[in-house]
């Protein structure tokens, strides 16, 4: 697909409310993504391949895989979200759509939130859908797979939200991809710890409600703070260009 047939964003200045604007941004991002399907598939392929490396590289023993499986899947999901983050603002930055977004009368953080939501639906959600298959391949039992999917369902939006800050900060820089990982991986650690910890507790038969609630708290915190930070970062990056 060449850049010319990317759908343009049409928000008429004052007549559009914030919610309608968010919806417009969201649907446009979905349209763009479905016109470039390969970009959608890449993170998923990456996810499957990373998971495949572990039995090959470490051990195909059932006992090892059962113990490490949740961690492997979580790390692989984290990495593939990280990989896809570079695209979050890049194309819009290159073709000038982002400048228009910043100039909209609607608050920028809401538009950023809409973009991040689209990013999650396009990468995080497919990862969650794919997880049961890979969970069976690493010999997780049914209960663990269920809990794992639940933690990923709560956790991947947090990854997208925190990642949007990094993507906004590194926009337009040389070697933005590596820099993005350097900035964001430390911030992903709590989500990773609780995501895998919850599955570990479930495997021991302990109740997981409290842990899931805590991950929900992470999600709420990220939802309320991250859009502001990435909106601020976007303004900084655009003024830089």
């Amino acid at each position: 697909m060449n850049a010319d047939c990317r759908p343009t964003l049409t928000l008429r200045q004052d007549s559009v409310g914030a919610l309608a604007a968010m919806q417009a941004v969201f649907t446009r991002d979905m349209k763009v993504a479905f016109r470039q399907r390969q970009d959608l598939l890449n993170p998923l392929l990456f996810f499957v391949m990373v998971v495949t490396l572990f039995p090959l590289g470490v051990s195909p023993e059932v006992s090892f895989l059962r113990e490490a499986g949740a961690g492997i899947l979580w790390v692989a999901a984290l990495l593939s979200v990280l990989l896809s983050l570079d695209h979050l603002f890049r194309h819009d930055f290159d073709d000038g759509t982002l400048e228009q977004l910043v100039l909209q009368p609607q608050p920028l953080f809401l538009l950023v939130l809409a973009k991040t939501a689209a990013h999650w639906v396009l990468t995080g959600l497919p990862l969650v859908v794919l997880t049961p298959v890979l969970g069976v391949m690493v010999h997780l039992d049914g209960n663990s797979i269920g809990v794992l999917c639940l933690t990923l369902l709560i956790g991947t939006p947090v990854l997208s939200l925190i990642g949007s800050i990094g993507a906004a900060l590194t926009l337009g820089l040389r070697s933005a991809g590596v820099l993005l990982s350097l900035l964001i991986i430390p911030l992903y650690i709590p989500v990773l710890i609780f995501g895998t910890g919850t599955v570990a507790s479930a495997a021991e038969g302990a109740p997981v409600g409290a842990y899931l609630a805590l991950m929900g708290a992470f999600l709420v915190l990220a939802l309320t703070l991250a859009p502001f930070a990435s909106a601020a970062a976007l303004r900084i990056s655009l003024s830089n260009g």
Partner: protein
Amino acid sequence: MWQFFHKLGSPKWFFGIAARLMPWLLAGGILLLMAGIVWGLAFAPKDYLQGNSYRIIFIHVPTAFLAQSVYVMMAVAAVVTLVWRMKLADVFVKSVAPVGLVLTFLSLFTGAVWGKPTWGTWWVWDARLTSMLILLFLYGGVIALDRAINDEKSAARAVSVLVLVGVVNIPIIQYSVEWWNTLHQPSTFKLTEKPSMPAEMWVPLLLSVLGLYLLFGWLACLRMQTEILLREQRTRWVKDYVLVGRG
């Protein structure tokens, strides 16, 4: 009050104050640090549990303490940068980040070496060591981002956003690492927390913490002066300072 605030924001004013403060900071820092270290190394009594290896504490605790408080100071300066656009605040963040990185590395290194005689291994995934490792990553990210952005103003503000995001995360990281640690290793490995440290141990520790603080103050002033000189090259006072003043 506001006048003071504006003065504080003036690089020229700070440059002069720093020049006047620096000899005192350096002398006091070296004196206190040396006093604390010599006292701790040679005169403090041996620890009944860990033997002499505990003497690492006299540099381990100061570096760890300072590594964390430098990040908090950077966060305060980041708020000042974003809200008031004060030039000095972002000079501070930029100048001090490498110092924080070195201090964090030192606290990790001394912690690891201390772990060998105490726990029998160089590295344990102890909650505190792990959080310090993550702090090292955070410092690395701040420095990398600062280096990657060419425009001075954008770099300052982008770095400020990153530092603030990091500082919101630090308590969460610390909490989750502690939780993870208890999940994975039932408290077999812990730095022995003595209920009451005898005065012969904590007084030298206090001295070396204070000494390192002063030394950090000196380093911060020095590095900020460098940054100010480079940024204010075109101003009259820097020209006078460089061509005539000489210190």
